[in-house]
């Protein structure tokens, strides 16, 4: 059950270990891709291994580097890019692109840029998401509630959540926002705030962060008020929280939640009701600055033989080809990063049948990229996520917002200082 393709009798295949952090339908689809790829050629054998959460994977990659346990090709999340880049554990993707004369133009510009440094591709964009807001459209309809606007403000959402609570007589919870650092990052991005200095690290190694900014505070205030009013229910944090909120939403016990577009696959396959999607909400009286892309990219380790690296590259290409990206988007909800994918019948049919799954793409398309909404290029982002997540937990449990954010900021700055010193990034 581990997903080996049957090896052929001829020359032994080169084993290409592929680490990923996908769960649910995405994980199944990756296994399928591996099987198809293995069947499509005779030189390589892709062995996919699930390595837990994005957070866990980063250190696993770093710590196994140079040992027989390390992967040939691995998936690593958006914000780990700076860390992996500085650690020099991967052969820059540009190397293979150049050697193979691979046409990078078929890849969408935003993700391409996200995983480049100095004009060179460090890793291959693969699963690209947008944070969005989900609601149970059928439920709203049944309760006679007007669906939220496509680009809603905080109070728009509050209003809907309140009505859900009231009209369902408390049987359905209004909404939830997971205690999740990524969402916190997006609140800041959408408010056009830089979390880290040096323009979120795009202009140089960040030396400090500041979570305690007006936009972040406003978002936290919004959450806290709603928690107090019982319009937000708390599912906690981590993977349990995600499964629990998903389960509640699918069971019709939850009206609204905010998550990555990567959940669409899960939601559409598991839900009898009609799904509603709108943009990530923005503060009242303030224009949305847009959110950054989420997800992860593919890296090829530099501690493996040339031929293994070659096999890894072949597989990477396979994963981002137009057809597979189209399938990927349909199954998971990650936006196809291959521009050609839009022409694939799979996607065309999908958009025709379920127009709302196009919403994440539309959100991305209308976003004008700037350094606030292009992701954070900083080491130790995992720690930042833990800290902001803890701050959110304090906020949920009625803690002082300013204090919570200040504490998190101080802790993070101390960590950055140490890390930069230890890694020799600054003096």
């Amino acid at each position, binding site marked *: 059950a581990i997903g080996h393709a049957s090896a052929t009798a001829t020359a032994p295949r080169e084993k290409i270990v592929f680490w990923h952090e996908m769960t649910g339908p995405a994980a199944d689809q990756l296994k399928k891709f591996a099987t198809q790829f293995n069947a499509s050629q005779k030189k390589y054998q892709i062995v996919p291994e699930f390595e837990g959460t994005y*957070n*866990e994977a*980063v*250190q696993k990659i*770093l*710590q196994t*580097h140079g040992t027989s346990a390390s992967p040939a090709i691995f998936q690593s999340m958006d914000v780990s890019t700076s*860390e992996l880049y*500085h*650690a020099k554990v991967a052969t820059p993707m540009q190397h293979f692109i150049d050697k193979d004369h691979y046409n990078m133009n078929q890849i969408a510009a935003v993700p391409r840029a996200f995983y480049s440094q100095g004009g060179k591709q460090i890793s291959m964009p693969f699963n690209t998401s947008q944070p969005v807001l989900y609601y149970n459209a059928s439920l709203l309809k049944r309760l006679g509630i007007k669906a939220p606007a496509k680009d809603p403000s905080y109070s728009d959402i509050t209003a809907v959540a309140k009505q859900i609570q009231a009209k369902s007589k408390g049987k359905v919870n209004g909404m939830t926002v997971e*205690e999740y650092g990524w969402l916190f990052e997006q609140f800041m991005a959408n408010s056009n705030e830089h979390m880290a200095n040096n323009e979120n690290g795009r202009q140089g190694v960040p030396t400090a962060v500041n979570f305690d900014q007006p936009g972040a505070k406003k978002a936290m205030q919004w959450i806290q008020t709603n928690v107090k009013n019982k319009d937000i229910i*708390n*599912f*906690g*944090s*981590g993977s*349990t*929280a995600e499964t*629990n909120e998903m*389960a*509640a939403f699918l*069971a019709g*016990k939850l009206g609204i939640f905010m998550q990555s577009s990567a959940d669409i696959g899960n939601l559409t396959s598991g839900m009898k009701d009609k799904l509603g999607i709108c943009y990530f909400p923005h503060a009242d009286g303030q224009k949305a600055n847009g959110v950054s892309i989420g997800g992860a990219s593919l890296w090829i380790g530099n501690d493996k033989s040339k031929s293994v690296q070659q096999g890894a590259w072949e597989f990477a290409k396979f994963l981002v080809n137009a057809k597979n990206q189209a399938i990927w988007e349909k199954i998971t909800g990650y936006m196809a990063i291959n521009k050609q994918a839009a022409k694939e019948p799979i996607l065309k049919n999908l958009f025709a049948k379920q127009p709302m799954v196009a919403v994440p793409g539309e959100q991305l398309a209308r976003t004008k990229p700037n350094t606030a909404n292009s992701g954070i290029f900083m*080491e*130790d982002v*995992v*720690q930042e996520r*833990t800290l902001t*997540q*803890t701050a959110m*937990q*304090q906020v*949920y*449990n009625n*803690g002082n917002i300013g204090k919570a954010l200040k*504490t998190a900021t101080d*802790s993070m700055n*101390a*960590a950055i200082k*140490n*890390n930069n*010193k*230890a*890694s*020799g990034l600054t003096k």
Partner: protein
Amino acid sequence: MLQRLPKQVDNSLPSLNLAAKYKLTDSGYAIVFLGPTLMLLVAFVFYPMLKTLYMSFFLTNDFGKTTAFVGLSNYVSLITSSSYLSSLGATLVFVLAVSILTVVLGVALAVTANQELKGIRLFRTLFSATMGVSVSVAAIFWLFAFNPSVGVFAQLSQALHLPVVNWLTDPKSAMVAIIISTVWMNLGFTFLIIFGALQSVPKSLYEAADIVGISKLTQLFKVTIPMISGTLFFVMIVTLIEAFKSFGLIDMMTEGGPDNATNLLVYRIYQDAFINGNFAQGSTESILLTIIIAIFTLIQFKFLGKRVHY
């Protein structure tokens, strides 16, 4: 090693010298018998302790290599950090609650199972069953029980029209949930040990008490507890150390949250070293943990040890 021992005066096992003189000496045998264990302990216990201490005086890079020497500053920043202190506090609460509850419940179970009744063996077996439950299984059972929408606790409260407790997302109740689960997991082992001790208390001691008319409850405190105090002491120390080391349940049930309420010291080490990649800080926390456990063990030896009747 094939040498003659110098003539030894007297010792408690001198026969061995005489017997073994013409072959391996005792020291020779000792190297063979003790060698493998010693090597393993040196490699995986003694050396790492020193290495950890060493690392705690440095900063480490992404790969865990020591880079800059910082003296005690890792320690200073830790013990002045409010979040570490709150972890420490949480750990103490957890450890005390777990060890006290485990021992009290273990005694209750053992005493109950120490009756001679038909079918008692079945009860004894069941009482010890949680010893066979591994941590991830326990976590899954309890995650289900504490689940806010389908868990039995939630359903019970709903059925009784009580407010549903957010067991794992409210800092206070999360701690309670972790304590309950841990105590449950420890119970089987504790029960077995205490029960074994109870079985070895001579029956005649109770009979002597029965004859002078001492009540069963008085017998429990005046005869049973003193008689098994040695075992209770052992169990207390083991449970305490085990509680300090709790990891699996936390990882699966709360990941240290919410708001670090269940971020016990060991989980913190894991997080700092293997999630945040800060090995130096992890090492510092390891040393502090070791010191704390040592202090607790010594305190126990000093205060409880005195009251133990062997």
